[in-house]
């Protein structure tokens, strides 16, 4: 079970197989993601869909995708709550998706970086995810599959409004692209709010880790486009990349400020975080996120040298509540989870 779960985060730990090459600016951009919503023209949308429609859509997608892309189809109705939660923690499905009660499923490609949710709010939600700043590579991969499926099913499309979606806020390109950034420098210099306001001015939105309404933790922020209608896909992607690069510049400057003004204080914070992760016997996932934030900063500015960003990425995802249970292949109560999580981390950063 552990290896199956690790397969789902191969996109985050490159060079472990046939995944996409790693994106740029990895020490600041944790990951990039593109999500494209599509509906099949001949089937009613979610709200008017019958059980039989939902079932035949799944069969249809399985038949089409099966011959083209190497991967696995997971039937959500047959999965345990823990396994569904794990897919969410691995960022392969959306929070709303795992709560669906009608027939639904997700196809995941062999590289673990492209998933297709079937019967989400829209019939199909194509998603590509990769580490670092990687939107351009991701988009060609996602649209390659999207187009192939479209040729076979016929998407709901309107000359004026573009691709039609369940919710009017997604119509047009149906595309939402996001970058997930680690900004401890801006948090420290109190510039976060300024940067976020700036993002808002140009039609971008900022959220926490799991999308809409989720809280911001561990200095992690997600930037994505607000509007989906009236833009060309590549222009939208370019705007997000530009904004990301601008924020990267400000973050780098903030990091320089920190290192000139408060180097001792920060070195202390970084190495104390490392020491706790190496020594703890019980640890919550929230605490891990905060300690990892300090450590990621340390690795990024070359203060910590013997730990890689890939390792930190892996720990960040594996130490989440459902994943840690699947990693050890057993159901664990919260207290046991904290103990096992500490054990896993000690091993992972070479303390034992």
């Amino acid at each position, binding site marked *: 079970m552990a290896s199956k779960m690790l397969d789902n985060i191969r996109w985050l730990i490159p060079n472990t197989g046939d995944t996409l090459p790693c994106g740029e600016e990895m020490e600041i951009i944790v990951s990039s993601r593109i999500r494209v919503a599509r509906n099949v023209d001949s089937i009613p949308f979610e709200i008017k869909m019958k059980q039989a429609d939902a079932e035949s859509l799944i069969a249809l997608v399985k038949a089409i995708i099966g011959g083209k892309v190497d991967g696995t189809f997971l039937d959500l109705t047959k999965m345990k709550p823990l396994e569904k939660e794990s897919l969410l923690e691995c960022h392969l499905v959306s929070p709303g998706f795992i709560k669906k009660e009608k027939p639904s499923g997700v196809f995941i490609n062999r590289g673990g970086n492209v998933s297709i949710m079937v019967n989400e709010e829209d019939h199909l939600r194509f998603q590509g995810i990769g580490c670092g700043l990687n939107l351009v590579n991701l988009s060609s991969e996602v649209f390659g599959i999207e187009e192939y499926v479209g040729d076979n099913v016929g998407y709901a499309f309107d*000359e004026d409004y573009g691709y039609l979606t369940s919710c009017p806020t997604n*119509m047009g390109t149906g595309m939402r692209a996001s970058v997930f950034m680690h900004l401890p420098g801006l948090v420290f210099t109190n510039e976060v709010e*300024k940067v976020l306001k700036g993002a808002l001015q140009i039609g971008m939105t900022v959220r926490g880790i799991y999308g809409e309404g989720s809280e911001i933790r561990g200095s992690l922020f997600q930037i994505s486009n607000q509007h989906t209608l009236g833009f060309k896909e590549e222009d939208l992607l370019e705007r997000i990349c530009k904004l990301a690069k601008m924020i990267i510049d400000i973050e780098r400057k903030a990091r320089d400020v920190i290192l000139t003004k408060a180097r001792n204080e920060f070195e202390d914070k970084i190495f104390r975080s490392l020491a706790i992760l190496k020594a703890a016997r019980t640890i919550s996932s929230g605490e891990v996120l905060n300690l990892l934030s300090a450590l990621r900063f340390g690795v990024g500015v070359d203060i910590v040298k013997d730990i890689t960003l890939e390792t930190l990425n892996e720990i960040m995802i594996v130490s989440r509540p459902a994943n840690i249970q699947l990693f050890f292949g057993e159901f664990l109560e919260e207290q046991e989870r904290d103990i096992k999580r500490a054990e896993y981390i000690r091993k992972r950063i070479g303390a034992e």
Partner: protein
Amino acid sequence: MLCDDCKNKPAAIFFKEVLPDKTIELHLCEDCASKRGLLVTKKLTPLEILQKLLKQTSAQDEKVICPRCYMSLAEFKRVGRFGCSECVTTFDENIRHLIKQIHQNDRHIGRKSTKGTKKGFEVYKLREELKKALEREAYEDAAKIRDKLRDYGVEDA
């Protein structure tokens, strides 16, 4: 550079507007920009705009009904979701302003559905029917289904 307005705080926002007869350029601090109303501090999200606009209902809404999925405009305003691909055409004149406000735009210029066929699903259903017909050895039915499939350009069935 100091703010053009208060000449006190450093300018953080650069504002440029090209008018027919002149170009206005301003370098402002955050406070002065917000005083001039140039700074959007709290913008409604597209979803919030949608929810706000859907509250504007009329008695006529019950009478506008999508011919394909039978969703009424009233129902659309209650749930905020379309019922099928025909709904936007049916509700077009009632929702165009809404879409324009949500996206600040009402015309798609991105990728186009190159093969906007409605065939895929039909072909799939016919193939399923064909399979079943062959299973129960109803060869006449099977031949008819094959003919229909051929109309869709499927030759290998």
